[in-house]
């Protein structure tokens, strides 16, 4: 457990992806089964046991410490698990050794003994392993938890206690995704992460078969999941210079819908039960978040299935075999696809209430068909898959699942026009939710990852405003010596005349050369420092104007300005522009209305 804790501790501070991978692979190398398997499970969120409530932890510490000292400490540290981990009076602190006095002399050695880590002897049992903790927690009764927890807390060191408390309270936020943990496992065994993703639903902690395969000691585990995830194919962003080498006739174009890319999979397990799953593009099972789509994914089993009153009778769904659809989740209201802002109401919800599903009905727009019955279609050219998809969706005849329409075009010029005005180029009232155009080679196979030259995304031009740099902060990792996080603002009128109000934060979009320039500007024009934050001069005649590009705008009560941007980034440095000529909040307000009413209208600088 202490070794796992040390890994978590280090991961929590490490900003770099490759360095995180290195830390993980070295852990998998050093630590044997079954601990490393449980670690992988903990990092991918695959462990399941009843979590301890913070109240229990509070009770445990209250029995052992002075309430005033605990209150002062908690106030200082600000995190319950961490406070308890640090101030837990473990047995080795209790053995206080007498200090040397003046006559005593040899002080150093003796005092250090009080700090030493516990030696595993009969008074100090060895700290628990991760496997021990996980397997015990699985079967432990609720009433036994406090006693067991305090025993472990006695045995672990500070970092071990912190990790244990994070684990049992289910609050492990250490900035690594399930995907990254699996990638590390793949790297450890020099395998393709896609293979792990494929077999993952069939694996269970502590993954002995997986690690045997990764170490070359065993067969590749097979995924027996009847509704498996298939690694997703992604597109490259197209540049204007790319078109010269591309022939319009080789491509099929469709709208790029601004929703959530998903894979909808249906299948039948060994007992003949029907399964349907919705996966995110990274392979996460998100079925539970969208129960309202589920009936549409269950293929026809019997005629007396329950009906949803807003939907057609289910028996119209005549599909009898497994399938896998690649598509986009969208909210559709009154036949109109809603913007991403609306869809956001459905995301990251703990409870999906009937009201939510009624107000924000979810819909699947199909892009591609990866499997149909027993046939794996991924090895067919896109044009053929598209034909299969069209007939599949037609047979389905379900109001919640429809086909992503193609955009007819015969030249890049024609497509340019369509992209500029999706509304009149076929997207109609749904143009709100279009974030650009997708180009897919007719002969493209469905390949995992981002294969070169197969699929292109051609995003709508971003919205742009001119804002003034107000505050700067150090970046992380490679950028920790640079001021690379910028808060920028626009003008508003107040009783005291015009003032800048912050509207967003950006930390990318600039080139390395531009970063150096801004960094230099920040250092030379700091007016005040508040901890890590530098206030940078922002007066009407003095300051730096940043051209900020962003994808969308939203009302926000969390921001003083009342608006929040989506994907803001620094587009250009406007050294030529005095801050007084930067945009005003009214411009953003207008854009907000414009976006809501007319949809995809390009809002460039006015």
């Amino acid at each position, binding site marked *: 457990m202490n070794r796992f804790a*040390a890994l978590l501790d*280090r991961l*929590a*501070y*490490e*900003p770099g992806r490759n*360095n995180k991978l*290195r*830390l993980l692979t*070295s852990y998998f190398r050093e630590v044997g089964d079954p601990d490393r398997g449980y670690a992988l499970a903990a990092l991918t969120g695959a462990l399941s046991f009843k979590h301890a409530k913070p109240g229990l932890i509070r009770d445990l510490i209250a029995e052992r*410490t*002075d309430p*005033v*000292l605990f209150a*002062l*400490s908690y106030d*200082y*540290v*600000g*995190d319950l698990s*961490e*406070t308890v981990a*640090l*101030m837990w009076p473990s047995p080795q*602190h209790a053995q*206080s050794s*007498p*200090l*040397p*006095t*003046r006559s*005593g002399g*040899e*002080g*150093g*050695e003796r*005092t*250090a003994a*009080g*700090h*030493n*880590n516990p030696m595993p002897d009969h008074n100090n049992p060895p700290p628990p392993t991760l496997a021990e903790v996980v397997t015990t927690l699985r079967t432990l009764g609720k009433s036994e938890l406090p006693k067991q927890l305090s025993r472990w807390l006695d045995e672990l*060191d*500070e970092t071990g206690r912190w990790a244990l408390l994070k684990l049992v309270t289910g609050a492990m936020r250490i900035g690594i995704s399930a995907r990254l943990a699996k990638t590390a496992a793949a790297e450890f065994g020099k395998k393709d992460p896609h293979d792990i993703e494929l077999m993952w639903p069939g694996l269970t902690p502590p993954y002995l078969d997986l690690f045997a395969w990764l170490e070359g000691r065993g067969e590749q585990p097979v995924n027996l999941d009847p509704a498996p995830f298939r690694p997703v194919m992604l597109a490259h962003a197209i540049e204007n210079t790319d078109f010269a080498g591309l022939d319009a006739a080789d491509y099929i174009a469709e709208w790029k819908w601004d929703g959530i890319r998903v894979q909808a999979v249906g299948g039948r397990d060994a007992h003949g039960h029907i399964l349907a799953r919705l996966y995110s593009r990274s392979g996460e099972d998100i079925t539970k978040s969208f129960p309202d789509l589920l009936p549409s994914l269950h293929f026809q089993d019997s005629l007396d299935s329950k009906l949803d009153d807003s939907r057609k009778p289910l028996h119209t769904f005549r599909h009898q075999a497994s399938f896998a659809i690649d598509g986009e989740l969208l909210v559709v209201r009154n036949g109109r696809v809603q913007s991403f802002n609306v869809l956001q109401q459905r995301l990251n919800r703990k409870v999906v209430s009937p009201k939510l599903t009624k107000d924000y009905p979810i819909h699947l727009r199909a892009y591609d068909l990866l499997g149909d019955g027993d046939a794996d279609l991924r090895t067919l050219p896109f044009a053929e898959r598209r034909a299969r998809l069209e007939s599949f969706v037609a047979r389905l005849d379900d109001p919640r699942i429809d086909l992503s329409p193609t955009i007819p075009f015969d030249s890049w010029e024609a497509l340019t026009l369509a992209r500029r005005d999706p509304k009149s180029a076929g997207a109609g009232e749904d143009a709100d939710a279009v974030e650009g155009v997708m180009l897919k080679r007719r002969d493209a196979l469905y390949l995992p990852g981002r294969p070169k030259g197969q699929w292109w995304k051609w995003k709508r031009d971003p919205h742009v405003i001119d804002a003034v740099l107000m505050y700067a902060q*150090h970046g*992380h*990792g*490679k950028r*920790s*010596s640079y001021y690379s996080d910028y808060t920028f603002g626009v003008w508003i009128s107040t009783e005291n005349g015009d003032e800048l109000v912050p509207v967003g934060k950006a930390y990318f979009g600039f080139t390395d050369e531009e970063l150096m320039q801004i960094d230099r500007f920040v250092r030379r024009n700091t007016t005040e420092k508040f*901890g*890590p934050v530098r206030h940078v001069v922002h007066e009407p005649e003095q300051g730096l104007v940043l051209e900020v590009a962003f994808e969308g705008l939203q009302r926000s009560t969390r921001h003083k300005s009342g608006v929040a941007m989506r994907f803001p980034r620094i587009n250009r440095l406007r050294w030529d522009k005095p801050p007084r000529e930067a945009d005003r909040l009214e411009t953003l307000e207008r854009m907000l209305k414009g976006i809501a009413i007319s949809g995809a209208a390009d809002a460039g600088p006015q």
Partner: protein
Amino acid sequence: MRRAQAYMIKMRPQDILMPVAAGLCCKPGGFHIDPVRPVERAVITHGHSDHARPGHGAVLATRETLDVMRLRYGDDFARSTQAIAYGEEIRLGGVTVEFHPAGHVLGSAQIAVSCGGTRVVASGDYKDARDPTCAPFEVVPCDVFITEATFGLPVFRHGDAADEVKKLLASVALFPERAHLVGAYSLGKAQRVIALLRQAGYDAPVYLHGAMEKITRYYQSRGVALGELRPVKGMKKADLAGTIAIAPPTATSDIWTRRFPDPVTAFASGWMRVRARGRQRGVELPLVISDHADWDGLTRTIEATGAGEIWVTHGQEDALVHWCTTRGLAARPLDLIGYGDEDEGETSPGPEEADE
């Protein structure tokens, strides 16, 4: 241990030492301890800049503290100086002054002031943990013990510094193509980290930021074994791969770091015990190594002195004063202004965040 009770006439401790604007004033002895503004006669515990300031008339301190002041402020940092050894006793006015090791940095001392059968110990900054670069802390029995409280909260338990150095070396082994940049205060912590590295068997050259060189060379001249040291200056970026460099904490997030290949930023400080502190500073490898006593060290020491009255200065006074009262000890915060921001110019970590 209530020594004073053996005497018939007893000085009140506040008649011996009392806090004034300039620092702790000893009226019967005619001097101040660690004065924060220029005074006629100063008695100084150790060389950190918040305790040892230039511009006093006469200065009494250990030889090492005087040397450090000379290195920092030049030869004319005071009108006259007098060196005193550990265990030596000096009569100043109506009081007797003795110096005892404080275990904080090279030359650091606790100052015992006795008068009329009452002994008050001003401990300055101290730690009871092992430190190969300075004399170990000694407990001085007394009636009143004046303690710092930099880490005066029970969340501060610093563990064995050797384990932290192991963590650093494990990281060096894991990332051989990167440089490891350890932020450490230039007097005391830097040398202790180097000495701990040597004790852990690390024998490659350790690289030094320019601001560390003078003090570190001085440690070596006093017989502290630090192995081969090299300046960072003049090194090629590629040649710094796999090395360990020691720098003042602020330098580890500054332009200076761009000369290192993909540096891992470490920080050796007791503050690193609390995660938010490490994250705030963009530290990637926190090393919990402190030159101040941790909570257990503070409370253990207070008990060991046998003092019935505890005066608490700079740091988290509230918690320590509370702890004293629960043990039946008279305790009060001293509210001295100007301490705990030692090496501020070097680190600018915010007033409450100073370290050795």
